[in-house]
């Protein structure tokens, strides 16, 4: 077993190294940012002296190296630091906003896969037919549409126009889980549609690639029906590239969420970063970028583990 353990440790070390690089880069970026949280916090008619006092109180005037040391040590303890603006720890702020972003990403991926996998497979099997050409054209157009533009149109038509769904926000404190989810329908569609186009195209390409392989011809020579050939033999082999693209699009969804959350006024992680940058809330910017990077690294790890399940040739 030690080979497996050693390999896992190696992966873990790799992941931590990546996060260390990300943390350092984020720390540098944020420190180079002009605009000073103290100035923003105190409002426009604060005197330079007031700003200097607040800076020292929050510890912003300590030498960079000290601040970096504190930041990295904090990370090891899992403490992402204290938000300047929100009066709570970055961890709590992120956790409070995790729900909308998590569900937005989850729904978008579910919508994307629900559409993309069957359509992608079917258009690959039915290559060259009218259905295939329609699918290719639609996915081409859908992946060219900016998700925020689609979002705005959805708001105009469904929320303001027909009043079917809430235009923005995420419900008040008393709104139950179901009512909050209602707020996620339109954003999920805006994000899901664009992403499903990408996944459909990848699924189709992966299936076409696999359908050309020799073992598919062997299966047909055995007298297997077309559906068994496609589902049992071809699809199993196309899963690896498909899993890769789904993993990639989950990461892209988190980025896409930034814009969509702003358009729909969802109090999610994306919205938090945009407001944190506008009010120069360093710890929150650092914490969020790091957590998003960590999620990306985690997704990568999960996809690698899935490879092992799907393809026996892949060893750890």
């Amino acid at each position, binding site marked *: 077993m030690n080979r497996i353990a050693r390999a896992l440790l190696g992966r873990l070390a790799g992941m931590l190294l990546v996060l260390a690089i990300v943390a350092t880069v984020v720390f540098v970026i944020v420190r180079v940012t*002009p605009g000073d949280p103290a100035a923003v916090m105190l409002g426009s008619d604060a005197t330079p002296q007031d700003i200097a006092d607040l800076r020292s109180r929050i510890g912003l005037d300590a030498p960079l190296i000290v601040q970096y040391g504190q930041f990295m040590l904090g990370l090891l303890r899992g403490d992402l630091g204290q938000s300047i603006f929100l009066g709570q720890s970055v961890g709590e702020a992120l956790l409070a906003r995790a729900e909308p972003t998590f569900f937005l990403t989850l729904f978008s991926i579910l919508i994307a896969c629900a559409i993309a996998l069957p359509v992608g497979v079917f258009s690959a099997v039915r290559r060259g037919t009218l259905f295939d050409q329609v699918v290719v054209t639609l996915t*081409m157009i859908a*992946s060219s549409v*900016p998700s925020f533009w689609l979002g705005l149109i959805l708001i105009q038509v469904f929320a303001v126009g027909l009043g079917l769904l809430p235009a923005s926000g995420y419900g008040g404190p008393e709104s139950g889980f179901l009512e909050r989810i209602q707020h996620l329908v339109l954003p999920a569609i805006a994000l899901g549609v664009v992403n499903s186009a990408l996944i459909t195209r990848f699924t189709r390409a992966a299936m076409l690639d696999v359908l050309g392989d020799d073992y598919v011809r062997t299966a047909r020579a055995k007298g297997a029906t077309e559906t068994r050939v496609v589902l049992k033999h071809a699809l199993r082999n196309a899963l690896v590239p498909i899993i890769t693209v789904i993993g990639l699009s989950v990461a892209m969804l988190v980025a896409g969420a930034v814009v969509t959350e702003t358009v729909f006024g969802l109090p999610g992680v994306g919205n938090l970063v945009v407001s944190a940058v506008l009010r120069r809330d360093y710890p929150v910017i650092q914490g969020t970028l790091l957590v998003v990077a960590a999620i990306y690294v985690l997704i990568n790890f999960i996809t690698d583990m899935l490879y092992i399940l799907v393809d026996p040739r892949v060893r750890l």
Partner: protein
Amino acid sequence: MTDTTNFLAAPRLLLRNRAALLGAVILAIVVLAALLAPLIAPYAPNKLSIVNKLQPPSASHLFGTDEFGRDILSRAIFAGRVSLLVSLGVVALSTVLGVILGVAAGYFRALDAPISRLLDAMMSFPDILLAIALVAALGPSVATVIIALGITYAPRLARIVRGSTLVLREMPYIEAAITLGLPTWRVLTRHLLLNLASPVLVQATFVFASAMLAEASLSFLGVGVSTDMPTWGTMLASGREYMNSAPWLMIFPGLAIVFSVLSLQLLGDGLRDLVDPRLTKER
């Protein structure tokens, strides 16, 4: 090796692929419009005339006017310049970075692990978030947005280049070049890079498309490039306020983005069919 090694025939094959042809035509229109903007734009992009603001599309103003009474068609044409400039800059930077890192990781076994970790780190920054942070850090200039997006897209190119290099490195004509005693830089440039051109070109078109979408999102969020020249994203941002009363402010810049990105996707797909599939896959 499919007959795609016959790169002389590539242009003819490309044109026979109807989708790629359509993509090339639309892209040509967009690029020409941007280049010849001063000649073909009916009005100066920033010419104010408050009196006839928010006019619907009419003979004199094909796309109508915005909240300052400026002609939207002219602004859309000029906006094309910035969006194309930024996206081209991003493609150039990510291609250069991507090729250097990709070839280094693919050709020199010792560099593979460290570079791959670096690529993982660069890839783990969602493009919009890094761009926002960088734009806030270095100020909203064209260069900042190019750097921000260039860094986040470089890994996408680097991975394809690394995959292709791993395949090409085993090719006999590369090993022949080594046995002929050609210096390494010559082997890398004349033999390796020349054959990387097509897979890189394919991925570059898709990066171009993503860069345009990202640039539009950034300027929409108000953290994009800050030139007094309009971009499609800023036009959408200021048009949003009047979406109900003057929808044409939102429609035409949006369509401009969709068509430009669509043309690139079509072109990219057309090119991909010409390239040996083994070279366009990530390893």
